[in-house]
């Protein structure tokens, strides 16, 4: 029984590490939704593009890993801005279903583009870092790095949103879009900036995921749905709620996956989600 407990503790701690990463994943999606009122169903696929970008630059072009990652983040940020300009902007006044669906089209496109460019084989960076042992428990080193960077990324985003003019405008525009021109702010530009920031966060997530997981054109599907659930559970657009929900979900996946199998972790998380919807339909921190 004691052995079981130590592994259970390991699973819980791994869940916390995963939680930081999930928090980062949900942050970008939440930010975009909060400001533009559109959900990017293809958000996880943008992360996938970030992973491939890092892989290509590092493995095929032999860039130093950090440079490859910086370029990966920049390219997904650009992708986010393009996404807004060419896909979202034309449907801003369309029905919500069309807005969702159009991002679904981008999902297919990105998946297919990745398959065309990289094939369906699993790719990885080939970076092997030794696990970190604490007592009888061992933790994957990339996971610890991912957790630390994710937490730093969330904190940096928080500082950006609260301290800078642009960040303050991003928060303001979700409260009153119409009067923004009176402040000298062009809503269209804020939307593009937000989309680029959301893309940059997706790119950063990609950098962290590529350290831990093999890349595959369909990898977005393995963490996209969980990201949606986190955002809804936390209250769409509510970033703090999203952070809390991320850590809760991570526990379900990690501990559930430890006790059963990884897919069951997701299933349990979903069942939990439904249960919470009965209890607090507006999300754990949602208003009204």
């Amino acid at each position, binding site marked *: 029984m004691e052995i079981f407990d130590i592994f259970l503790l390991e699973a819980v701690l791994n869940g916390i590490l995963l939680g930081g990463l999930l928090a980062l994943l949900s942050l970008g999606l939440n930010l975009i939704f909060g400001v533009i009122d559109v959900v990017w169903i293809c958000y996880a696929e943008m992360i996938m593009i970030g992973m491939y970008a890092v892989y290509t630059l590092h493995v095929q072009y032999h860039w130093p890993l950090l440079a490859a990652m910086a370029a990966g983040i920049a390219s997904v940020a650009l992708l986010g801005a393009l996404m807004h300009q060419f896909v979202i902007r034309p449907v801003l006044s369309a029905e919500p279903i069309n807005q969702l669906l159009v991002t679904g089209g981008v999902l297919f496109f990105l998946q297919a583009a990745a398959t065309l460019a990289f094939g369906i084989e699993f790719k990885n960076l080939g970076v092997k870092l030794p696990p970190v042992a604490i007592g009888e428990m061992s933790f994957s080193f990339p996971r610890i790095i991912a957790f630390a960077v994710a937490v730093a990324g969330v904190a940096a985003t928080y500082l950006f949103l609260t301290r800078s*003019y642009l960040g303050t405008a991003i928060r303001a525009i979700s409260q009153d879009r119409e009067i923004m*021109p009176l402040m*000298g702010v062009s809503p269209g530009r804020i939307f593009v900036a937000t989309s680029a920031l959301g893309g940059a966060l997706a790119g950063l997530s990609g950098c962290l995921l590529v350290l831990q997981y093999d890349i595959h054109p369909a990898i977005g599907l393995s963490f996209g749905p969980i990201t949606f659930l986190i955002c809804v559970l936390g209250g769409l657009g509510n970033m703090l709620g999203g952070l809390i929900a991320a850590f809760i979900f991570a526990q379900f996946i990690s501990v559930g996956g430890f006790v059963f199998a990884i897919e069951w972790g997701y299933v349990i998380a979903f069942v939990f989600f439904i249960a919470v919807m009965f209890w607090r339909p507006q999300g754990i921190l949602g208003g009204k």
Partner: protein
Amino acid sequence: MLALTDVCAGYGSFQALFGVSLEVKAGESVAVIGPNGAGKTTLLRAISKLIALTAGEVTMQGRSLKHVPAHEVIACGISQVPENRRLFARLTVEENLKMGAFLPAARKKFAERREFVYSLFPRMQERRAQLAGTLSGGEQQMCAIGRALMSGPKLLLLDEPSAGLAPVIVQSIMQMVKRICAEGYTVLIVEQNIRQVLKVVDRAYLLETGRIKSSGASAELLASDEIRKAYLGM
């Protein structure tokens, strides 16, 4: 400073302004008065380009605003306090001021102007870390005016600053307006509270169903039969 010539504007097929012409000279304080639905708010929205003109022209210091997009009007020196204040309720007082200073030129002078606003409204300094949505009506109006001053405007547009406020608060708001005029700002104010506003401005225009009915110095208008009968109930 600001001149409107034959301005027509409206919403969709509904026309709210029919050839409005008026002028505000530098250093003046001017009011546009009139009943509910006369088109007063539409007038200010047209100046700020929040809605498009269907005819006529607006010039600021001789420069036409025809091809200036809405978010660049403020860079021409026109700052507006919108109807119902429209503060960012979930931002703090200070963050609201920060939004008023969004323009790159204004950012450099943020600290200086913030101190000016705080000296004008010491209450705002006390409440600077409070969310704007939790302020009282009068405080919200101070915050909204402060936010509009943060861009260092040459012309301040005020849209119904007394709306929805208790009479005693209205008095203090009008005193605030008077002080702002005394600070050397040029002010164009739109008001329904005619008696109060005519006490603080130099000149006024009477707007009815989208047309200028009469205009003149405040004292003149206060004394005119037209205004006294129709709006002051005398």
